[in-house]
């Protein structure tokens, strides 16, 4: 197929590509354009969980044991639902204390215990190195398969192993501070997650739809084969049930406690908010990478007729079908799954071993001039040692075990951390002694039930020895410890290790009294109380002391940089720092040192150097008691506040739900996240349908510009179905965006307003009737007279034709005048709409004046108009005409004997001001406040409806303007109308 050197060259090229990707990502990070700081890369980086075990081993497991392989991915899927509760808390604590490993986390939690920290590190190293070996084994085996070279795989594996160690050093251990994020490494891992997913999906599609005719075909064929039982849940026996549950629990623990998962999920987390996307993106990734596992396993069984070599069906099936390049892609997918795990795991384990085992041993040499360089070199050596140990495992013991078997042993090992870790987050009584005892007991069970049998199988131990006799006794059978059968191999180990671990942890914690140090740390972890952080900081220290201590471990340059950054941020010289600032500086220095040598050790170093006085120790004890007491009170207050808050929440929810208007809130992409009952009724769209949908698709008549209009605003919108809504849009103050939209159905109200306006118009026409009848009556009388004269005209008269022509011209003139009056009235009386259009307000006023001029009272008026240039206004012309008409008719009513009527129209800032001023009898000051009230009139019964000024007021207000009145009894009245100049 492929020559070995070709495959080797391809692998090296892939690794170089990986180097390039990591380098680019780091460079972008340095330039402040991070490629890593987004939830998608974070979610993909968590997929480092999917190793060569997933890529190859799952198919192997499916071909031999059926569906139980799924538990390894269903467990993390379930656990993801708790990430916002548990993982978010871990991230917060780890960031606050610059914690970089699980061992550091546990050691720091239990009174900064170096012993516990070292134990956890040792368990992790022993438990996880075989898992690294598993990856290298997969690389070697698949290299041999694709190159048809049964020898040489081991040598190639060694070279690749060293390359991976080099990658971890360059992108993970270039500096001493382990708490800083490794953008290049994370981006490379995210890239590899994509490669392995695409490769697996490609081979899955090929096998399922290229070699067979889809899922149904493969499943039907396997039904007719000797492997039909694989489709069910392993025969449904008692063991199958308990083992399913055990594997589910194991994988739930693994996703939290595997060192590489802690590294990616906690240490490399740039933003806690990324968890919100990762909780569903990561399980989706697991789902996708598992869809084709069963079809490929069944295809391998059907094609080869045996489960032998099932671990590599993913590669051997396309190879057997002659798909050369697809096989190469699959090989690279498996390679990427293995490499990302080896790189991240070796980095995480080396940090753990360095901070928890090596540093405490070396700390005595900290006064050596090149101490920081030495410890950095040691860390790099540990990385190489970890990958090399993995390699050794792969070429010695690894061949005796399947990929899944090795992986599950590691899962069992890290599950030992669960009781002390999880209970330590929520239970203050958990003690250091209890955690150590529980861990030791759990580890002993793990070693006895899983590792001893493995050593027998590999021939390292012989069954004829004392250990062999012990394990073959019924009571201490590693697969059924203490004679308990039915749990299965994994269930048995998990049950007994957890049982003893938990019992000792809880029992000893309850039986012993925690030390002062443990109490402080418990406050810090369980209550997240920052006051606890300051408790041991009582000693008198100077900035120079702190710099001196820091310099011994991280180098003089970095130490000086930390101090300088600190004082620069506070704009004060180092010797002038206050006691509070010195405390903060010490905490900052401790954080920096934690990144380099671990949290527990860095705290201990500072406490050793800055010894507390007796007085300070006494103050510390009383402060601790005070904090504990105040926490108790705080909890009570919190409970009361919670209750009040719940009541308020329910109260406001009820109001919003029962409001007679439609209320919806949308996010910045206009997707609905709230839809009240009123909205359901108005839009005719149920809440379930509406949620998460774009609001401009649900309500297409709601324009995007209207919703995204910036500040709070309101507009009346008419739907194609002639419904009228008043739409109020208020943006959220939250920077993430979104708006609240309130919809009020004003269809009925608008109709009533239109009817009212119409009635008002008719009333106005009534008021004009007298004057207009006169205007029509005069020409009619003239026409009548002329017609009579024409009738009596003598045909023989010589003046006849000329007279006839003159008379007809006069009649025509009169008729045109009548026609004009009737047209004006008709125009005015027509049914108006509620639409606003850009209009010339002077032209509207002119039209209104023309109508009023027909009133005979107008002849006694001295009319004067002064109009400035006015831009077009967005108004309803019919409504504004009615306003002007009411004002003019009121002026005429006020001046029955004649007078002056002055109308001015001018622009004043963002408004147009129209003033109608008469010299009539004026208005009594007592009734001035009521003139705009509906049905209020000062006119005699039958002369006025009392609605004119009320309609004027409503109309002007609807246009966003104001109408005011000034009047003096006997001197006249001035109405002032102000209308806004909107952008038309």
């Amino acid at each position, binding site marked *: 197929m492929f020559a070995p050197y070709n495959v080797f060259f391809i692998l090296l090229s892939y690794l170089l590509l990986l180097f390039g990707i990591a380098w680019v990502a780091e460079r972008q990070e340095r330039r402040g354009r991070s490629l890593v700081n987004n939830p998608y890369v974070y979610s993909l980086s968590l997929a480092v969980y999917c190793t060569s075990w997933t890529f190859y081993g799952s198919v192997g497991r499916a071909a031999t044991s059926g569906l139980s392989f799924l538990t390894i991915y269903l467990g993390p899927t379930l656990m993801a*639902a708790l990430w*916002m*509760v548990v993982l978010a808390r871990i991230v917060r604590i780890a960031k606050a204390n610059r914690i970089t490993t699980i061992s550091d986390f546990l050691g720091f939690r239990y009174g900064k215990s170096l012993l516990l920290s070292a134990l956890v590190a040792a368990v992790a190293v022993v438990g996880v190195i075989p898992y690294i070996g598993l990856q290298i084994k997969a690389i070697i085996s698949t290299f041999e398969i694709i190159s048809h070279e049964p020898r040489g795989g081991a040598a190639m594996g060694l070279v690749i192993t060293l390359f991976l160690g080099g990658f971890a050093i360059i992108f993970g251990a270039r500096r001493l501070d382990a708490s800083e994020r490794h953008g290049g490494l994370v981006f490379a891992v995210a890239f590899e997650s994509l490669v392995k997913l695409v490769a697996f999906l490609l081979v899955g599609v090929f096998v399922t739809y290229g070699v067979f005719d889809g899922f149904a075909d493969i499943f039907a064929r396997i039904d007719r084969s000797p492997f039909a039982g694989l489709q069910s849940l392993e025969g449904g026996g008692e063991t199958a049930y308990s083992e*399913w549950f055990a594997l*589910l629990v194991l994988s739930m623990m693994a996703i939290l406690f595997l060192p590489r998962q802690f590294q990616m999920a906690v240490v490399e987390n740039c933003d806690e*908010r990324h968890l*919100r996307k990762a909780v569903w993106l990561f399980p989706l990734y697991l*789902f996708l990478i598992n869809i084709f596992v*069963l079809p490929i396993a069944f295809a391998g069984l059907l094609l080869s007729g045996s489960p032998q070599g099932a671990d590599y069906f993913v590669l051997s099936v396309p190879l057997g079908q002659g798909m050369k390049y697809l096989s190469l892609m699959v090989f690279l997918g498996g390679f990427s799954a293995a490499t990302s795990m080896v790189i991240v795991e070796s980095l995480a384990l080396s940090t753990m071993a360095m901070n928890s085992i090596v540093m405490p041993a070396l700390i005595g040499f900290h006064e050596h001039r090149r101490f920081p360089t030495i410890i950095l070199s040691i860390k790099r050596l540990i990385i190489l040692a970890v990958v090399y140990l993995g390699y050794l495992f792969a070429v010695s013991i690894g061949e005796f075990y399947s990929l899944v078997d090795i992986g599950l042993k590691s899962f069992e090992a890290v599950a030992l951390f669960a009781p002390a870790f999880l209970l330590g987050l929520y239970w203050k009584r958990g003690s250091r002694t209890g955690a150590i005892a529980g861990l030791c007991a759990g580890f002993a069970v793990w070693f006895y039930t899983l590792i001893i049998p493995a050593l027998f199988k590999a021939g390292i131990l012989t069954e004829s020895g004392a250990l062999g006799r012990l394990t073959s006794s019924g009571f201490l059978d590693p697969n059924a410890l203490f004679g308990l059968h039915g749990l299965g191999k994994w269930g048995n180990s998990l049950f007994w290790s957890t049982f003893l671990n938990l019992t000792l942890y809880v029992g000893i914690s309850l039986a012993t009294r925690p030390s002062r140090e443990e109490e402080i740390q418990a406050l810090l972890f369980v209550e997240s109380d920052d006051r606890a952080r300051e408790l041991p900081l009582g000693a008198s220290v100077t900035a120079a002391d702190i710099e001196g201590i820091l310099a011994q471990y991280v180098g003089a340059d970095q130490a000086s940089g930390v101090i300088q950054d600190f004082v620069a941020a506070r704009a004060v010289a180092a010797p002038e720092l206050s006691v509070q600032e010195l405390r903060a500086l010490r905490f900052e220095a401790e954080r920096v040192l934690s990144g380099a040598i671990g949290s527990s050790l860095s705290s201990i170093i500072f406490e050793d150097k800055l010894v507390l006085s007796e007085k300070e120790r006494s103050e510390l004890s009383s402060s601790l008691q005070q904090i504990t007491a105040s926490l108790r009170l705080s909890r009570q207050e919190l409970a009361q506040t919670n209750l009040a808050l719940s009541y308020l929440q329910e109260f406001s929810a009820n109001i919003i739900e029962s409001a007679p208007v439609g209320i919806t809130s949308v996010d910045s992409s206009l997707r609905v996240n709230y839809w009240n009952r009123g909205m359901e009724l108005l839009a005719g769209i149920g809440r379930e349908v509406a949620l998460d949908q774009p609001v401009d698709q649900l309500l297409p008549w709601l324009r995007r510009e209207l919703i995204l209009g910036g500040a709070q605003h309101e507009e009346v919108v008419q739907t194609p179905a002639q419904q009228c809504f008043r739409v109020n849009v208020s943006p959220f103050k939250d920077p993430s965006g979104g708006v609240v939209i309130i919809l009020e159905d004003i269809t009925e109200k608008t109709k009533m307003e239109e009817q009212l306006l119409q009635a008002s118009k008719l009333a106005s026409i009534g008021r004009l009737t007298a004057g207009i009848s006169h205007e029509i009556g005069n020409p009619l009388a003239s026409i009548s007279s002329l017609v009579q004269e024409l009738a009596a005209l003598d045909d023989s008269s010589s003046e006849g034709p000329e007279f006839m022509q003159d008379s007809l011209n006069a009649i025509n003139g009169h008729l045109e005048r009548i026609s004009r009056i009737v047209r004006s009235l008709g125009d005015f009386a027509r049914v108006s709409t509620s639409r606003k259009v850009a209009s010339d307000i002077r032209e509207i006023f002119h039209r209104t004046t023309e109508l009023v001029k027909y009133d005979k009272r107008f002849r006694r008026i001295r009319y004067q108009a002064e109009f400035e240039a006015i831009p077009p206004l967005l108004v309803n012309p019919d409504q504004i005409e009615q306003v002007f008409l009411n004002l003019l008719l009121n002026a005429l009513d006020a001046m029955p004997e004649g007078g002056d009527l002055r109308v001015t129209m001018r622009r004043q800032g963002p408004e147009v001001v129209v003033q109608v001023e008469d010299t009539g009898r004026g208005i009594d000051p007592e009734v001035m406040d009521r003139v705009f009230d509906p049905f209020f009139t000062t006119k005699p019964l039958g002369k006025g409806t009392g609605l004119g000024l009320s309609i004027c007021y409503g109309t002007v207000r609807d246009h966003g303007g104001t109408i005011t009145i000034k009047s003096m009894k006997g001197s006249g009245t001035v109405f002032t109308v102000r209308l806004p100049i909107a952008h038309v």
Partner: protein
Amino acid sequence: MQDVTVWIAIFILGLLCLNWPLLGIFHDRPFAYLLVFWLFFVFLVGRAARGGKGPPAP
């Protein structure tokens, strides 16, 4: 607090639906059930993450 309750409720639902005795109902053909429930669970977690309080996803 309400947020925490929702997450715990979803977790417990998943734990119940992916274990016996419920899993026993689909004993002979569990693959399709597991895949469908898996997707449903992802959807449920996604909805809870979108609708939850606290800082929204960027």
